């Protein structure tokens, strides 16, 4: 279990533990210790020393985000600090938060209580996507049990600290996962991202100081408090602390969630996922979900963490690998991604609202064999305008441009063959080989 603190206690069928069962496994010891023996500042320092980076995609150090939260009385006006757990997992290829929400909801409640304590937040909201109904039910039940046991509510464990916690079921749209869009959604508005600054820690939900963290990030916190920062750091093979709940899917024989040390390699993870399926030979992979750039076989031994993957020219994102073998076409994958991001744009800014559907139409044409060589120039321009250094309002379009930009750079010949041969060359060659 200690090798896999986050998933080691999860039951194979994902039936969650009752509070009593969870306590029998050591659950809530960290909460008792934290709230009875440690100051909020000490909890924050432990998370800092543990080098816990946010697991929602950006990899921002959790403690650094928390330090922006004002202490009671420091922020102008009346009202609480809010701590929000982001369970809106919708990145293509991401299915790691689902298991943490469904199978170990008490782990999430524990982490959220400690995180709220460290950020002086008295209100915790867990936003969960509509499609995760089991997760909504299981987390809601865990909250009820924790309330009944006195871990939530007024004056928790005699600390003088009041915490309320509830679940907000969402109703679709990928953009809700962007933290300021998520805040808009909680306020009952269309989920359009906000301008920053002000950052949520200055002015978030209802204008109050707010921290938003991913499910997996929050699920790490109780373990850090229970076992110490050094222990958490020692789980990792790199400078970034902890294990990582990876997810491996696409062309692998046994797609699955795998908790492994931070810094595990794609080669190891793909092997644990039963190896490459299809013809068994890797063509490429996305290391961090749909919005991460393609890497190839030469990156199989890169230690997977935020820093190393960035240095390798991609993004670690959600740590969810999408694997393609030689019989899978990256152009087809990019076409799916573009259709997805175009549909999920909130429509606020022009490059994203109009640029993504344009790119999606072109990708559909190219895949169908009706593209033109001049289309590639338009796609490159779209990457230029919408990419990471581009002009879109939030990161949705920049993310969408990662697979397109790296795809054009790495697989330009495949794009051109689609256009010259008027069909998908990968599918055609595969059919010929099979015949």
């Amino acid at each position: 279990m200690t090798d896999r603190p986050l998933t080691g206690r999860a039951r194979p069928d994902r039936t969650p533990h009752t509070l009593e069962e969870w306590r029998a496994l050591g659950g809530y010891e960290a909460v008792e210790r934290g709230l009875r023996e440690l100051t909020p500042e000490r909890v924050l320092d432990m998370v800092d020393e543990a080098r816990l980076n946010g697991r929602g995609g950006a990899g921002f150090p959790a403690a650094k985000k928390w330090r922006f939260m004002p202490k009671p009385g420091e922020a102008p006006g009346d009202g609480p600090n809010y701590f929000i757990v982001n369970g809106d997992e919708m990145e293509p290829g991401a299915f790691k938060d689902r298991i943490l929400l469904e199978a170990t909801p008490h782990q999430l409640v524990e982490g959220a209580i400690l995180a709220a304590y460290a950020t002086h937040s008295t209100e915790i909201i867990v936003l969960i996507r509509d499609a995760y109904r089991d997760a909504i039910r299981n987390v809601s039940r865990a909250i009820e049990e924790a309330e009944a046991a006195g871990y939530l509510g007024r004056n928790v464990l005699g600390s003088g600290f009041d915490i309320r916690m509830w679940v907000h079921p969402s109703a679709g749209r990928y953009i809700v996962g962007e933290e300021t869009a998520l805040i808009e959604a909680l306020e009952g508005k269309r989920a359009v991202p906000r301008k920053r600054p002000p950052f949520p820690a200055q002015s978030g939900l209802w204008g109050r100081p707010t921290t938003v963290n991913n499910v997996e990030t929050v699920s790490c916190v109780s373990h850090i408090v229970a076992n110490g920062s050094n222990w958490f750091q020692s789980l990792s093979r790199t400078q970034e602390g902890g294990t990582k709940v990876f997810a491996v899917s696409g062309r692998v024989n046994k797609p699955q969630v795998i908790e492994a040390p931070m810094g595990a390699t794609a080669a190891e993870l793909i092997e644990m996922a039963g190896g490459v399926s299809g013809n068994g030979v890797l063509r490429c992979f996305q290391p961090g979900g749909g919005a991460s750039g393609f890497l190839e076989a030469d990156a199989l031994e890169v230690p997977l963490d935020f820093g190393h993957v960035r240095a390798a020219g991609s993004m670690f994102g959600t740590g969810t690998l999408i694997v393609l073998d030689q019989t899978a076409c990256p152009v087809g994958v990019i076409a799916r991604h573009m259709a997805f991001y175009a549909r999920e744009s909130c429509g606020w800014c022009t490059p994203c609202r109009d640029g993504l559907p344009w790119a999606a139409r072109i990708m559909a044409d190219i895949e169908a064999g009706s593209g033109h060589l001049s289309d590639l120039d338009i796609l490159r321009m779209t990457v230029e305008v919408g990419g990471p250094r581009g002009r879109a309002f939030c990161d949705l379009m920049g993310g969408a441009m990662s697979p397109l930009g790296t795809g054009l750079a790495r697989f330009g010949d495949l794009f051109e063959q689609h256009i010259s041969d008027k069909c998908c060359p990968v599918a055609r060659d595969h059919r010929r080989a099979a015949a």
Partner: protein
Amino acid sequence: MSLAPDLCAAIEEAKHHHGGPRPAMLESLRMIQQRHGWVSDAHLEEAAALLGVTTAEMEDVATFYSLIFRRPVGEKVILLCDGASCWLNGGDAVRDAVMEKLGIGFGETTADGRYTLVNICCVGGCDHAPAAVIGRDRRLVGPLSPDDLDRLLGEDAR
């Protein structure tokens, strides 16, 4: 048909949770949909009046969130994943087979009112690809195969 008294009471109640009428809008829409399967114009107007917001404000929210249905849906809504991992595992063939069997496309409902087919972004079921979530409890099903659509359409999955 107007909203049932208990639903009206629940909407009134929601107003007092989580910060007033505005954030109660989405929750109200969700409750109406849970009861009726979708949100009609009449129900939307009624809920807006109960919350003290305008119909336009309510519509503003209802039309943004893709899983608030503003048209009638079938007894069972099939949310078929169109993510890349499902595509890499034969998602298109499943999609084509379902569409052929039901005789409908995405966003459409069968004439007998039994099924509505909707495409949805990655459902977090990549370990069961190709996958879908079905019915009011959004049950995850997969891996699906074009030759065996019973898991998708079976009577047990209401």
